[in-house]
């Protein structure tokens, strides 16, 4: 069985692209260009208990000026994917295969030194917990300045001016005063702003935000989401937002990728996935969520059971033990054959054994009316 997902090779040919993307810098002409291209990425970890298949063959593209939301529950492999793109897994413990094309460079096969030079400059990351991602012994100003000087051979003075400018840009009041503050002197929302300033100081063309607002209160979350959106518009960068919160992705993402047990189960534009979700797991996520915008006294429709262990991923479709429709396709293939991603609409893919008509019928007749 070909492990490659069906659309590989059809859309955006992986490999060095010629033409406009070759020149550095972000301009309006490049907007919409594929900037990051992930092909059949697998990240496995050897442990005493067995091989953990955290990410098991996922492919996607992120375009300049667009935001990709990666949604999944804990243990679905969404954070491992982002760390894999950033080259932050230790090579002796993780087994990584597949391709990660950043602009024109393939990163998995590149040297660690090369990836390190890309990290921070071309791609940067915002972590969930800013208190543990910032160094407690250094002032925030020193940390941002250092991040800039690693990639730019400039004097401290110039770097400081740049850092102050960034602090101001992310909405920190009185940046000159806060520059010499330590992380513990900042509130959660302000710390997250500092991290965003640090991530953006080198004008990265790819920004990965891993649960950027999970640790924040809802009013602060709204501020940070707005900030990310505004900065993206200003810099035209490609953004990946990783979250478990469907509300957050609906606010911010243009495209959506739903992960389950290390695999992509559904991918499409945000409108496609929210309007006409195709995979039973996506239905489950939508049914599980209490909604702020509806006065619903009906019961929630949870997904039964619990997510599988990544050491023993169920054979066939990984979701079949929890899927209420697993017995619909005949011949037991949900239990034996891993479903491949198939295109069900323009740019909308799903990995499910249900026949298209069957799936549409279940969604319109059984699932949607109850949501």
């Amino acid at each position, binding site marked *: 069985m070909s492990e490659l997902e069906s659309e590989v090779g059809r859309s955006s040919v992986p490999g060095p692209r010629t033409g406009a993307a070759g020149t550095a810098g972000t301009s309006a002409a490049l907007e919409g260009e594929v900037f990051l291209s992930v092909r059949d990425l697998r990240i496995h970890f050897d442990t005493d208990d067995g091989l953990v298949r955290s990410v098991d063959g996922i492919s996607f593209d992120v375009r300049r000026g667009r935001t990709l939301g990666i949604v999944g529950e804990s243990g679905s492999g969404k954070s491992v994917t982002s760390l894999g793109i950033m080259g932050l897994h230790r090579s002796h413990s993780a087994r990584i295969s597949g391709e990660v094309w950043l602009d024109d460079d393939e990163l998995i096969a590149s040297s660690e030194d090369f990836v390190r030079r890309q990290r921070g400059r071309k791609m940067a990351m915002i972590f969930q917990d800013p208190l543990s991602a910032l160094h407690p012994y250094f002032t925030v100003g020193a940390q941002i300045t250092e991040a800039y000087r690693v990639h730019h051979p400039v004097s401290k003075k110039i770097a400081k001016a740049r850092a102050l400018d960034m602090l101001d840009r992310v909405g920190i009041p009185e940046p000159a005063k806060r520059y010499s503050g330590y992380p513990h002197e900042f509130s959660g929302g302000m710390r997250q702003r500092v991290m965003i300033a640090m991530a953006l100081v080198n004008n990265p063309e790819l920004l990965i935000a891993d649960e950027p607002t999970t640790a924040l209160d809802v*009013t*602060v979350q709204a501020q940070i989401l707005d900030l990310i959106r505004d900065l993206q518009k200003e810099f035209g960068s490609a953004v990946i937002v990783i979250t478990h919160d469907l509300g957050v992705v609906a606010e911010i993402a243009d495209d959506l990728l739903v992960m389950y047990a290390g695999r992509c189960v559904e991918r499409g534009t945000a409108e496609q996935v929210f309007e006409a979700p195709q995979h039973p797991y996506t239905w489950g996520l939508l049914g599980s969520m209490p909604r702020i*915008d509806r006065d619903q006294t009906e019961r929630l429709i*949870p997904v039964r059971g619990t997510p599988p262990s990544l050491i023993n991923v169920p054979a066939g479709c990984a979701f079949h033990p929890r899927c209420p429709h697993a017995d619909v396709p005949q011949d037991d293939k949900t239990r034996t054959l891993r479903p491949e991603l198939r295109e069900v609409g323009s740019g909308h893919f799903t990995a499910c054994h249900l026949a298209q008509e069957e799936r549409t019928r279940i969604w319109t007749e059984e699932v949607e009316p109850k949501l």
Partner: protein
Amino acid sequence: MAGEPLLKVDGLVKHFPIKKGVLQRTVGAVQAVDGVSFDVRPGETLGVVGESGCGKSTMGRLITRLLEPTGGRVEFEGRDITHLSVGQMRPLRKDVQMIFQDPYSSLNPRHTIGTIVGAPFRLQGVTPVGGVKKAVQEMLERVGLNPEHYNRYPHEFSGGQRQRIGIARALALKPRLVVADEPVSALDVSIQAQVVNLLDDLQDELGLTYVIIAHDLSVIRHVSDRIAVMYLGKIVELADRKPLYETPMHPYTKALLSAVPVPDPKRRAARTSRILLRGDVPSPISPPSGCRFHTRCWKATTVCETTEPPLIELAPAHRVACHHPENAPDQAPADTQPLAGTPAEDQVVHQSE
């Protein structure tokens, strides 16, 4: 709902002293809960919602008497329990139970599930018909766990299952009042729904009364009959679910509701305004004078800085503490001078493109 309230809280205060120096002199206090009054009626679910640091968890621990109140009064079934000692509280623990947020730290890792869920029977000296083991197994089954797992340890269970164990323990003695502090926030979305449904079913089966404390406004909307919104140790609004979400009166409630992300990308374009509050919640060590929200409120006037608004009923069963409420007549119409530094409304209300 008629009848006597099950729980009556009046002017409840909790200040945590801040001590400094060799002599451990008290130099100040964290005013975690500062004068909170409400009733909980039998059979209802009261939701308590607020941002971190608003005192909602402290409030939960005060009404279950895990903390000693600094002032005010807590009555359970007409009996004053404000200053009961640990020993005096013990018989009442049968009727007042708590479900905790973190299913990892709230279960003793060295005890089996049978011991954990059976502990309330032992501590209360209750011998159920058929023995403790049978009662525990029935309880496990009721919360959706396999009764044969009686001899297993907490680490053998997933987060959602552990939360079910915590629920089984809290409900073992069929309490009257259950206080649940963030019961689902540590769980994944699909598991969260299972636990919310379970709490719902158990309430129907056992006739429970809940106080559910959470920061997630969507969860609170789903589970509650009435909702109290807290800000910096005070209740700013208390109303039934429908009016609170449809016609919120306090500007803070309105801002909170508008900030919640809605899982519908169409609404992103359709939404005309979102209220973006400036800054963060002030420190509860030195809360702002007057109305505690005035530093972030776009409607604040001079009176807000000087006079604390009382929590009064402005519509039937809808209480709010604000001088200039939304969806209700202005309480201080004479006072129109905006506070210095208060941004004009169009600066706060964010127009999406």
